[in-house]
Structure formats: structure tokens, C-alpha cells
């Protein structure tokens, strides 16, 4: 990896992590509030993020924009016929999200903020991913 790539990805991550903290997306409380439909906060964040994402992807696709190295930007489509994996996997993820109150990025942002106990869910999440890898061929997709 080139040093310039390293710096750009690192900076992108820093911005993302910083916004996750400042917007309180990392908060267990905010996730509880979201699943109780008590406030617009989380819906506003995800909704506007998607809005900006949709507009930018449409611009990129329609203008045939290129990346920094001059390669045309391509975005892989996801296969919607594997609906079982999205529904079952998604539901298991949702159970964990509402329980732990943190999805993957917030786990790491919270760890960085000094909440050392987050190393526990990070390790068990890695174990969960590992178990999925082992069981993959036997699960409905």
C-alpha cells in the first residue's frame, strides 16, 4: 500500500469515527431510542446519509466518473435472489444491534474513546464471523 493511500484511508476513517461520536450514533441509548421510534435522530442521520449517497452515486454513474488513479468507478451489485441470507442474517444482526447498541464501526469508535470493555464484543464479533465462515455451506442463503 502506498503511503498516500494509507493517509487517505486513515483520514477518511478518522472523519467517520469522529462524526459517529459527535452524532452519538455510537450510543447504546440512541439505538434504544431508534428501535422505540421515540426520536428522529437516527432516522435523520441514516436518511440523509442515504440521500447524499444516492445523489453522489447517480452523478458518478451518469458522468462515468473515474477514481483518483483514473480507473472508471464501478460498484458491484448485490444478488437479491439470496433473500434468505439477508433476512435471516439481517435479523440476527438486528438482535445483536439492539442488545449491544453498537454496530461494527461504533464498537471500534467506542474502543478508541477509552471504553476498553468494547474489546469483548469485538472479539466475540470476530468469533461470530469465524463461525459463519465454518458453517457457511450448511446455512440457507
Amino acid at each position: 500500500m502506498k503511503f498516500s493511500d494509507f493517509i487517505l484511508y486513515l483520514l477518511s476513517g478518522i472523519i467517520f469515527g469522529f462524526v459517529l461520536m459527535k452524532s452519538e450514533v455510537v450510543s447504546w441509548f440512541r439505538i434504544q431510542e431508534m428501535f422505540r421510534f421515540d426520536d428522529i435522530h437516527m432516522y435523520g442521520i441514516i436518511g440523509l446519509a442515504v440521500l447524499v449517497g444516492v445523489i453522489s452515486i447517480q452523478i458518478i454513474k451518469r458522468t462515468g466518473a473515474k477514481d483518483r488513479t483514473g480507473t472508471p468507478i464501478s460498484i458491484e451489485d448485490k444478488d437479491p435472489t439470496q433473500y434468505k441470507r439477508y433476512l435471516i442474517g439481517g435479523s440476527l444482526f438486528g438482535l445483536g444491534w439492539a442488545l449491544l447498541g453498537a454496530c461494527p464501526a461504533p464498537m471500534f469508535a467506542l474502543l478508541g474513546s477509552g471504553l476498553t470493555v468494547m474489546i469483548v464484543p469485538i472479539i466475540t464479533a470476530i468469533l461470530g464471523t469465524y463461525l459463519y465462515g465454518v458453517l457457511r455451506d450448511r446455512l440457507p442463503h
Partner: protein
Amino acid sequence: MIDLLYQPWPWYVAGPIIGIMIPLLLIVGNKAFGISSNFRHICAACAPANVKFFQYDWKSGLWNLVLLLGVVIGGFLGGWVFANPEPIDLSESTVSSLQELGIQDFTGFVPADLFSWEVLASPTGIIVLAIGGFLVGFGTRYAGGCTSGHAISGLSNLQLASLIAVIGFFIGGLLMTYVLLPIIL
């Protein structure tokens, strides 16, 4: 000006900045924004064993691991260096329903009642931290993405697959919130 770094940011400021991550990573290196693949890269780097799912060159995900390192640093800056001293301005109905479940500490990002090394010794602590993390890790890879990969990246690219995954997130999340959490806490 510097006050803005300490204060919480409203949703209409934070949302668009998170959305910018998508074109940013596409332009920087033709990368699709997503975080949870890193768990897979870590498995592949540390213990691929003879599991086919982990037999690939994990270095292809190095950019994402660097992004993740940035998230940790961003968390340090946003939650430690420029920490907001005030408690989160939660809606009253959330506070009262959580109080009914026995949550007492509302001072930080997470309740100390659940997130501390001491609590980890209790069944509740193990369920929330260890099982919660396990479900996130298993579920996200099974679903092929997490909040960033599906809810933000996937929906932004108008993917039906991601919409189904997000519906799944809410099926699981609502079941946990209304049925299981009152039993666990």
C-alpha cells in the same frame, strides 16, 4: 469555533457527512464503503485454517483495516479529546422506558450499568457484551454487510438486497427491544 468540536452535532449535519463517505471512498480508490468485512479480514489474516471462506489474500482488505484504524482514532478524538461533558439529550419516553428496565446511569454514551469490566462478571453483562457482539459478527457476515455496508452503501446504490437486509435488521431489533431485552435486563 472550537466549541463545535466539543458539542454534539445535530442529525442534519452528521447524516450528510456520513453520506459523503460513499463518494469519498469511491474516488480515493474505487472502494465500496463498509466496515464489517474487517472481521472477515482479521479471521483470514490470523487463522484461515482450512476454512474456505477465509482463504483469500486478506491484504486486499488492507485499505479497510486502515479505515478501521482511523475510526478508532476518530473515536479517541471525538469521545476522549473533544468529549462532550453533557449527558445525551435523549427523548423522555426512551429514558422512562429504560428506567423501567432498571437502567440508572444516563451520563455517558453507554450506561455504566451494562458496559464495564465489573458487569462482565454477571450473566447480564455476558449476554449484552459477549452474545451481543457475537450476534453482530455472525449476523453481519451472514447478511453480507452491516449498517454501513447495507443501510448506507447498499441503499444508496438502490439495492433490493440491502433493503431486505435492513428489514431484517428491524425484525431482529424490534424483537430484541420489545420482547427479549425486558427479559434480559
